């Protein structure tokens, strides 16, 4: 049973943030109060109201030329989730059919600190009122009924695709080998460990500090 995967080909991402908004829309999450602090990136972090953010990282490359990298951050839906280290009572379960890592209401009883520390990508967040933990759901409710995840559906450029895991793995390998011709550092991040597989053109650290794990 291999379930599904999402491919995030960041070489095609233009940071339109359609995915960020679509995620809020489907999950009925509120817009939070934000301020411009000198970056287009907003909100500033994941929270129980925000399961997905486009990270904007800019700098100068080797020749002094500017780069601007976009990394649409979300739960990687690990095959062996580090966030489950504290699980004793099905607080977090894996949907056998889709592969989604599902946080149940029982996560309010989990040790939050240990759960976050267990996640290589710093994803889980806690609802300050209910104490329930929250993150990207893989749109498990959608994919089980044959729909695309909301973020994939919203992506206009083809940067995000969804499919059977083995198909996505093949597509990722093919795309990386194409990109390597122009970008020798092109890489798919941890494809053997995660379901949400990112393709980058450059060093992961130039995208987001937790792009390839802590």
């Amino acid at each position: 049973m291999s379930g599904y995967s999402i491919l995030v080909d960041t070489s095609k991402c233009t940071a339109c943030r359609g995915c960020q908004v679509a995620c809020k829309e489907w999950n009925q999450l509120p817009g939070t109060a934000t301020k411009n602090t000198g970056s287009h990136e907003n909100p500033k972090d994941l929270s129980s109201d925000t399961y997905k953010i486009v990270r904007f990282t800019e700098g100068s490359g080797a020749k002094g030329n500017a780069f601007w990298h976009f990394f649409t951050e979300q739960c990687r839906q690990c095959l062996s989730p580090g966030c489950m280290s504290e699980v004793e009572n099905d607080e977090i379960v894996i949907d056998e059919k889709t592969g989604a890592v599902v946080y149940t209401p029982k996560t309010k009883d989990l040790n939050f600190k240990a759960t976050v520390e267990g996640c290589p990508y710093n994803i889980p967040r806690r609802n300050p009122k209910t104490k329930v933990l929250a993150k990207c759901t893989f749109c498990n409710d959608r994919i089980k009924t044959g729909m695309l995840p909301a973020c994939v559906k919203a992506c206009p450029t083809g940067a995000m695709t969804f499919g059977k895991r083995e198909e996505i793995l093949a597509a990722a390998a093919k795309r990386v080998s194409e990109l390597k011709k122009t970008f020798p550092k092109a890489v798919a991040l941890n494809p053997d460990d995660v379901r949400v597989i990112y393709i980058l053109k450059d060093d992961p650290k130039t995208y987001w500090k937790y792009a390839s794990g802590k």
Partner: protein
Amino acid sequence: MTNHWIDIGNSDCILVMGSNAAANHPISMKWVMKAREHGAKLISVDPRFTRTSAVADYYTALRSGSDIAFLGGMINYILENKKYHKEYVANYTNAAFILGDKYDFSQGLFAGYDPKKRAYDKSLWAFKRDSKGIPQKDATLENPRTVLQLLKKHFARYTPEKVSEITGTPQEELKTVYEMYASTGTKDRAGTIMYAMGWTQHTVGVQNIRSMAIIQLLLGNIGIPGGGVNALRGESNVQGSTDHCILFHIWPGYLKTPRASSATLDDYNKKFTPKASDPLSANWWGNYPKYSVSLLKSFFGDKATKDNGFGYSWLPKLDDGQNCSWLNLFDSMYNGNIKGFFAWGQNPACSGANSNKVRKSLAKLDWLVNVNIFDNETGSFWKGPGMDPKKIKTEVFMLPCAASMEKEGSITNSGRWAQWRYKACNPPGDARPDGDILTELMLKLREMYKKEGGKFPTPILNLKWDYVNDKGEFDSHKMAKEINGYFLADVEIKGKKFKKGDLVPSFAFLKADGTTSSANWLYCNSYTGKGNMMARRNKPDPTGLGLFSEWAWCWPVNRRILYNRASVDLAGNPWNAKRPLIKWNGKKWVGDVPDGGWPPMTNKEKTKYPFIMKPEGFANVFGPGLNDGPFPEHYEPLECPVPENAMSKQFVNPTIKIFKGEMDKHFTCDPRYPIVGTTYRVTEHWQTGLMTRWQPWLVEAEPQIFVEMSEDLAKLRGITNGEKVKVTSARGEVECTAMVTTRFRPFKMGKLTVHQVGLPWCFGWVAPKDGGDSANLLTPSVGDPNTMIPETKAFMVNVQKLKGGA
């Protein structure tokens, strides 16, 4: 767009310049990515490294307002290195035409300039003609008075050194762009341009686009799949509203607004119907009277008769030379000459250049009707910043209207596709569709004219208005059919019989004798006896080029790529056999709807030249119709950072109108405003933000106005990233969050270092509360001499830390 969105996917080289497609037309990038799958290159040229630049194969920067220099250098490169498509240029453009003896260019001015009128006598730009009146040509292109040779002479001045000094773009980077783009001059390659307001909103806006049109013609990129000159329209239906004459100088379908000197319909038709001397020119506008009479029949129905000039005399006329475009309207309003104003689906208090002047103008009105889906800075101007409600006499009416998804109708996208859409839900509360508001207004006016008389009731009383259903509601199907047009009598045309009341199948059947109506000849064929063509949703794509000819409908007559008869050689075979758009099979054209069914050019008896909308039948490399010159020439923006124009002694465009009122200050090369400023939009907000600033997810993502600036400039001004700063111009000031970025770099222009900043115009004081105000408070009210579009993309500002810090 000469082409359409999907067609971008057919391109081999995509230049994004004068636009930031990834941010403002996000879905267009789907087709850019598609093109890259077959190896296409994406070039981004922008003062700032943008979301488009981030995914481009090559990026370089230029100073705002220097596009003609940049593109002029490319024209020079193409000609000098013989990268142009000679067969195309010689046969389909006016490059082989010979100019008359009076045409000249020196010191930055073309022949015929009158400094008092600030205008040209364009008769000096005429071609040399033979005894029949046909322009003389030299197919070898060698004659020194051919358009091509004069073009070469004109642009030889745009050397890499000169261009680099003006644009601030390093010479080697210019060369890279020129090489990449000029590679599309071969028959098997196509290059396209995606531009928007970054090119139009300048005092040389039209000539920016002319420069690119010349490049596209030289490279043989017009009429072919993956080519064209593609304006990315800024609103989902701006193409539709332009087609249906939202502008003052045109009637529907780009017919001309009549002038007072054309007293009769005959005068009017004579004035605007071009004559062709060459029998091989199709001269499509020769059909003008068929379209104007059919429009009048649509306006006035049975009341329009041959004897009364089909009601021509009932319509308002502009005075000769009168210009009623935006900047003039608001200047007139500011001077107290306009008493009432409908702000319908717009927000001029934020969208208008020099918004302080706009806001003060609104206070001079007696009444203002604000038709919109939300409150905005225009309707609430009287309680805005710096306003004293007690002193403002303007009475404001708010009419809530339906949003797009709350009504049925057509929407025409940038690619000229008119797509029908259905109503999703009812409008909330008292909100009503625009058509219903207009209908009630019209019927009420007519009732009042009937009862009370008035100065000139005839046009209102005679206007045909039968676009309502049984319940008295506006019926968009009835209007769509009216736009298409009807036969008004039983007639036989071209061997086909039609009955009175039949829908006209295409504009080829429209008549000038009053037996047909059409509210817009260009849309004739959109709603026919076969049904609502705009509502079609069939997906066959026999050419494989993404034309999708049975999906919706596009003008004219469902032709998906304009000037497509230039996509083939003289024998009718596609220049590029791998992308056959149309092809002559010996009897007829197959593929896209051709620009006329005449046989290819090798049939010298029956053919017509491919550029059928031009009186001579040839595309204009030399464009003698524009107000500011037949060739583009670099002039500095009205406000600029340099003391002189490096190209000539003519500093700014010599034909622009400069307003001289108290609200129209301009400072050039002034130490108080040493930084180039520009404005733009962001993905998250739409236009002035009127629709998006109420949307919590979008406000969360892009909450407040910012000003982007280089690290060097921030250092000079002692500004740190994220702190509050003030941006000022001669006309206003805006508080912003400083966004210090490596994506803006200072420009090295010869010995000068010039800084530039940019800020979005999508915010306003009404909502959200701490979002900030519009960047248009800074922009100048000066326009292009052809279109009067304001120069909001290049002006001068200063940036300072806000007193007392953030």
